[in-house]
């Protein structure tokens, strides 16, 4: 039995950190409490692949000894966390959510895991994910050898993908925070469907060394937390140049100064982004705008540049994904994948024409310039993260919410341009499921998005809600 009240496990990283630093709670006891929850609740949510109990307790004991000795590494010191199971961890299986890689073990940690260890964080486990991060076109929640990820708000529904485990585990208080990945939507979607704060960083801000590659020119790693502030704390630990990842940039994350004079933001509302969304999604978004009006100038009906975002993202993911998994596809072992679509999707992706891939890559320049010209006028644009609440476990996605769609492809556009996005919970809709909206911004304005999320959450209580488990 954990020695803490259940509330403790739903505290933010910032709150836990204060207690750890003040020696009000023990890192070892905290890790043991989270481990118990991860082992007991994690499987019921399809959220966990491997619990790293031994390593967690070693790291927690080290943190405890250092804190007691007065050595304070920073706000993640002693904080338990989990990583999507596409990040390499030395000597521990890294399965990529897929049966063919179930027994895969690497002999080094991913750079992000190394950075978090250096920050004093405590690795609790490897969290579930959609097989191969969904690169072969999955269309169903049951898309991992660990089964479907379930949102803790209503376990008949999906936690989102492809970072399904990080979303569910963070929302359910099974970890202090988690690390997810996004190629096109895989952080912000599970953040929305699980009701947590998820930051998709600017491309290149976080090293991907040691992460499964699906699409070299689109893959990003980022934090999934209970608050926007926590996303900033995690980003400060994991961002920066890594000589082992040529795409990484010397752009460390520096949170905007706490206590600085509050500034008024300029926020644009993306036109047509609520026309065909579910009624609760629209209402909750409109309510969020009222909150944003309290500290921002709101510019309505901002036209989003028109480009073929969907075809471009699809072509790039297909071509790079088919290359990344060519061995798997050509060996015939893709038949071991969970989702029927994934069993043939790699072959279809392998037929992507080179000229179409190059065309898509050529489009990224005008897309990037077009989006930046628009975003330069704002601190952020906002839109509902998803047009609907989550999908039920069972039916294929396309059968579930007929007539619902989200307007411009903000997720595809932002990923093609390498821009950051922050999704935050803004209420609940059908079936008691979370709804969310996203701040999107210019490249390298990750800090501004976090500030906006913090300002919103300082005026609302949605991020304080927690599921009944």
């Amino acid at each position: 039995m954990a020695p803490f009240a259940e509330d403790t496990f739903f505290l933010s990283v910032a709150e836990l950190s204060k207690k750890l630093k003040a020696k009000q709670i023990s890192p070892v006891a905290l890790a043991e409490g989270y481990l118990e929850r991860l082992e007991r609740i994690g499987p019921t949510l399809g959220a966990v692949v491997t619990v790293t109990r031994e390593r967690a307790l070693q790291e927690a004991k080290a943190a405890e000894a250092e804190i007691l000795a007065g050595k304070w590494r920073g706000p993640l010191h002693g904080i338990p966390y989990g990583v999507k199971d596409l990040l390499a961890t030395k000597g521990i299986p890294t399965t990529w959510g897929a049966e063919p890689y179930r027994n895969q073990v690497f002999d080094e940690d991913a750079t992000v895991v190394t950075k978090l260890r250096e920050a004093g964080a405590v690795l609790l486990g490897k969290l579930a994910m959609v097989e191969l991060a969904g690169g072969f076109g999955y269309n169903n929640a049951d898309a991992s050898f660990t089964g479907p990820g379930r949102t803790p708000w209503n376990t008949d529904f999906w936690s989102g993908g492809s970072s399904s485990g990080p979303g569910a585990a963070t929302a359910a208080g099974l970890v202090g925070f988690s690390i997810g990945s996004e190629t096109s939507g895989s952080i912000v979607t599970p953040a929305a469907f699980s009701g947590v704060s998820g930051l998709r960083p600017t491309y290149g801000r976080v090293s991907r060394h040691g992460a499964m590659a699906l699409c070299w020119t689109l893959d990003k790693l980022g934090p999934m937390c209970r608050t926007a502030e926590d996303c900033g704390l995690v980003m400060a630990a994991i961002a920066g140049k890594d000589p082992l990842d040529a795409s990484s940039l010397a752009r460390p994350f520096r949170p905007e100064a706490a206590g600085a004079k509050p500034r008024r933001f300029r926020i644009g509302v993306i036109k047509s982004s609520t026309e065909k969304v579910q009624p609760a999604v629209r209402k909750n978004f409109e309510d969020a705008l009222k909150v944003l009006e309290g500290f921002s100038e709101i510019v309505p009906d901002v036209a989003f540049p028109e480009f073929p975002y969907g075809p471009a993202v699809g072509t790039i993911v297909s071509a790079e994904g088919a290359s990344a998994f060519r061995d798997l596809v050509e060996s015939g072992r893709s038949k071991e994948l969970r989702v029927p679509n994934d069993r043939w999707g790699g072959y279809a992706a392998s037929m992507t024409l080179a000229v179409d891939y190059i065309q898509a890559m050529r489009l990224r320049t005008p897309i990037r310039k077009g989006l930046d010209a628009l975003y330069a006028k704002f601190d952020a644009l906002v839109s509902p993260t998803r047009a609907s609440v989550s999908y039920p476990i069972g039916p294929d996605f396309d059968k579930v919410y007929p007539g619902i769609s989200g307007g411009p492809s903000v997720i595809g556009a932002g990923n093609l341009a390498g821009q950051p996005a922050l999704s935050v919970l803004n209420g609940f809709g059908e079936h008691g499921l979370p709804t969310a909206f996203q701040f999107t911004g210019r490249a390298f304005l990750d800090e501004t998005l976090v500030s906006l999320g913090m300002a919103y959450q300082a005026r609302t209580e949605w991020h304080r809600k927690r599921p009944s488990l």
Partner: protein
Amino acid sequence: MSDSNRLPSASRRGFAKSLALAAAAPALAGAAIALGQTAPAPTPSPALTPVPTPEAPSSVAEALTDVARIRWGKHLSGEQLGEIAKALDGRLKGAETMKKVKLTNADEPDVVFFAELPGDR
């Protein structure tokens, strides 16, 4: 005969039949793949949009699927080849959409190659 040229398990006749069956189903695969790794957006409601007449995959999609059959047919059923044909048809339509964006000869792919030495970056 190399592996890649071996006759696959799905015969040409069976393959043609699977394409016909595939054409009778809604073209969903392209939409799913188009969104990459996140959940696809739901298709529009039949109540809101006219019910599309099922279209057979284009001859180019069929030809590409035939290449897939020749190369990897031993791993694929006729039904899966039909799904691949639908997906490729959607992909080809997407490629046509991409071609409509005006680009000049000077517009390079957004990836730059550097002839650098180890440690330069």
